[in-house]
């Protein structure tokens, strides 16, 4: 594989597929990661054909990520100078430069402190049985909790500091999170179909909005994240 061949691969990558995959480690932050990663390479000029190849391979991998729905490759680097890639998930084994790799999963991704209580609560909800409220409340479906946890990771990868996300569970077994300040209220519920339903109200202007959006929709999720970002602790 030559540098020219890799450059051709980059140029021919499709441009229409969604980059927000359900199995994403970085969620909607993937583009940011791409920029950061590419930047770390471009800071210093290639000193050899080998390094030029490495840079291009890295760019090709991240561009593939940006345009794909599949999970990220396993990536590690012991120093800035020695990144290594595992390209097996992409059928790009001809790019393999180093067999050493570190595997990460979504669960390895640390959540910011404001998500801790909600994450703990969602774990607790998994153990609840039918009638958990002493009457006839529904047991939460596993898919609802998976979606709720996934959204926390999207949240955590975009916003480092925020007022605490407060957990809730209704009698239909629907988990959610909410925030309430003097001026604003926002709640989000997860129904297990990889969409979410939110209600946002400005308590001063009385403006309110209720919507159901897909977590595949990066534009709608970005818009919701902008709203959430206003709930600073």
């Amino acid at each position, binding site marked *: 594989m030559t540098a020219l061949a890799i450059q051709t691969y980059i140029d021919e990558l499709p441009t229409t597929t969604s980059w927000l995959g359900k199995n994403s480690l970085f969620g909607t932050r993937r583009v940011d990661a791409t920029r950061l990663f590419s930047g770390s390479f471009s800071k210093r000029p290639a000193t050899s054909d080998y390094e030029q190849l490495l840079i291009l391979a890295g760019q090709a991998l991240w561009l593939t990520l940006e345009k794909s729905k599949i999970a990220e490759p396993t990536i590690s680097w012991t120093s800035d100078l020695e990144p290594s890639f595992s390209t097996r998930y992409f059928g790009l084994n001809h790019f393999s430069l180093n067999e050493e790799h570190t595997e990460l999963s979504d669960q390895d991704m640390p959540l910011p402190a404001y998500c801790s*209580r*909600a994450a*703990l*609560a969602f774990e*607790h*909800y998994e153990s609840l049985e039918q009638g*958990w*409220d*002493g*009457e*006839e409340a529904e047991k939460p479906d596993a898919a609802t909790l998976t979606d709720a946890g996934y959204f926390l990771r999207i949240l955590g990868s975009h916003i480092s500091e925020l*007022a*605490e996300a*407060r*957990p*809730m*569970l*209704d*009698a*239909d077994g*629907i988990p*959610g999170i*909410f925030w*309430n300040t003097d001026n604003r*209220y926002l*709640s989000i*519920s997860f*129904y297990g179909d990889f969409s979410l*339903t*939110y*209600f946002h*109200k400005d*308590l001063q202007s009385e403006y*309110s*909005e*209720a*919507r*159901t959006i897909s977590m595949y929709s990066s534009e709608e999720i970005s818009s919701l994240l902008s709203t959430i970002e206003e709930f600073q*602790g």
Partner: protein
Amino acid sequence: MPKRISSVFELDRAGDKGKARFNAICGFGYSNEDVCLSENVALTPHAPCVADEELLARVLESPTHVELDMGLKYTPAAFSDAHKWGLSVQRQSLTTAEEINLFGEAKAKAKERTYVGYVKALTADLRSELSPQSNKRLLGIYATASADVPSHADIYAITNSREDKETVKAAFWLHFKLEAYMPALQAAAT
């Protein structure tokens, strides 16, 4: 036809997994005018219909097997009975604080729970809640008095969309001012 509301309260409260009455009301597809008319249908000989200026009290119980920190009580989802067999409330104008407390203690004791106190909201505020999407009323409030509890009323959600359910959660949270009953969370936030 608003008078069909009478048939709702003839349904088994626990029917259809506790949602028989809620499903029936939603099925009517009431216009805002019809909701008002239905709220003025006499459903019981023991009390008049609920007026806008009345305060409604909801007793709070503390199930011992759920934890406050886990968001299992006094959250916006706490009053989801409104999407089921009806949110049971007491009309303050027809009772006293002492009677509400006695009612709460008896209700909690019957379910091996602890009575915590009660919260209040104004009927007009709850009735003014509209769907941001359809501009239709979200809640219906009905006098459901018995000879033993003449102050009893039920609040029902009257639409069943996900967006409206989320809006109703906010309405209960904000109007009943449940924030005050989350001391552990408040302490953690400060």
